[in-house]
């Protein structure tokens, strides 16, 4: 049986999403996207993904909302009402139907015998559990680890996989943030600095850009 709290969270999430779609007041919608993130962080905690929950709360409800608010202060505060169109409904309907069709052969939620829990993840957990617990016992003699099997031996398995097993992905992920920042700087950055440098330069800039 699903916990009622999950049902409640899903109802809240759905309501928030629908309200975001319908609201014309963009400031309110921006705040609601923050709330949406916060609610989903709650859901992630129930699903045992504490790291993801933490990140989603910090990013979605914190920084992303600030960025959106910054943008709104520079653009319009409200959006115009518009007639409902049919095409988006068709696209969304087909995509959603395809996804639901795909779930029909998926293992049930929480099924401990599902395929993905067996292969790689079981291996990760097995290696790390062994490494960490044996380390616990023989904390005084670190040489104990010459058993040959490569392991990280940290309690938080997510951190171990993130930073070591799949450390290269995380390197790429950091590069993604770097790329986005370069992009934002390319788009928004220079004008103010050039104004500061010297006044004659400024006219030049405005005619050329």
């Amino acid at each position, binding site marked *: 049986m699903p916990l009622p709290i999950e049902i409640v969270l899903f109802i809240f999430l759905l309501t928030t999403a629908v309200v975001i779609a319908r609201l014309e007041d963009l400031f309110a919608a921006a705040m609601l996207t923050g709330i949406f993130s916060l609610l989903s962080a709650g859901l992630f905690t129930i699903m*045992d993904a504490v790291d993801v929950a933490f990140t989603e709360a910090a990013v979605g409800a914190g920084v992303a909302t600030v960025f959106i608010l910054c943008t709104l202060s520079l653009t319009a505060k409200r959006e115009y009402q518009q007639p409902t169109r049919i095409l988006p409904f068709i696209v969304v309907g087909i*995509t*959603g139907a395809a996804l639901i069709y795909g779930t029909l052969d998926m293992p049930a939620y929480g099924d401990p015998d599902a395929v993905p829990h067996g292969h790689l993840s079981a291996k990760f957990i097995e290696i790390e559990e062994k490494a960490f*617990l044996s380390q616990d016992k023989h904390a005084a003699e670190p040489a104990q680890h010459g058993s040959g099997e490569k392991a990280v031996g940290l309690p938080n398995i*997510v951190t171990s996989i993130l930073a070591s097993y799949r450390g290269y992905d995380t390197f790429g992920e950091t590069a993604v943030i770097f790329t986005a920042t370069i992009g934002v700087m390319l788009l928004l950055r220079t004008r103010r600095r050039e104004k500061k440098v010297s006044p004659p330069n400024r006219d030049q800039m405005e005619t050329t850009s």
Partner: protein
Amino acid sequence: MQWLGLWHYWAVIILMMIGLYIVIARDNLVKKVMGLSIFQVSVIMFYVSTGKVEGGTAPIIPEGGHDLVYSNPLPHVLMLTAIVVGISTTALALALIVRIQEAYGTVEDDELNAIDGAAL
């Protein structure tokens, strides 16, 4: 009856589709970005929900904790990366919107189309 175990996924898919709908149907560019982030968060939810193991705990090994069942840590790792990608995309999209506002004076798609002379 076995479908009862799938309703989590379906709820997540409905959320996803609301996000996608906002992206496609709304004209305001900021609203599109909000839709995009709802879409992405829902996909993250989809992944995380596949990692849940009934009776499991968060994948953090307690001191001396033997024979515990943990939820699948791999989707969590992947989704940490996906969240980062999401915020990066949002930031870049917002920067573009600010520039569009400066160049055109509006961020409504239909008005922008009118200004650009209905070019495709």
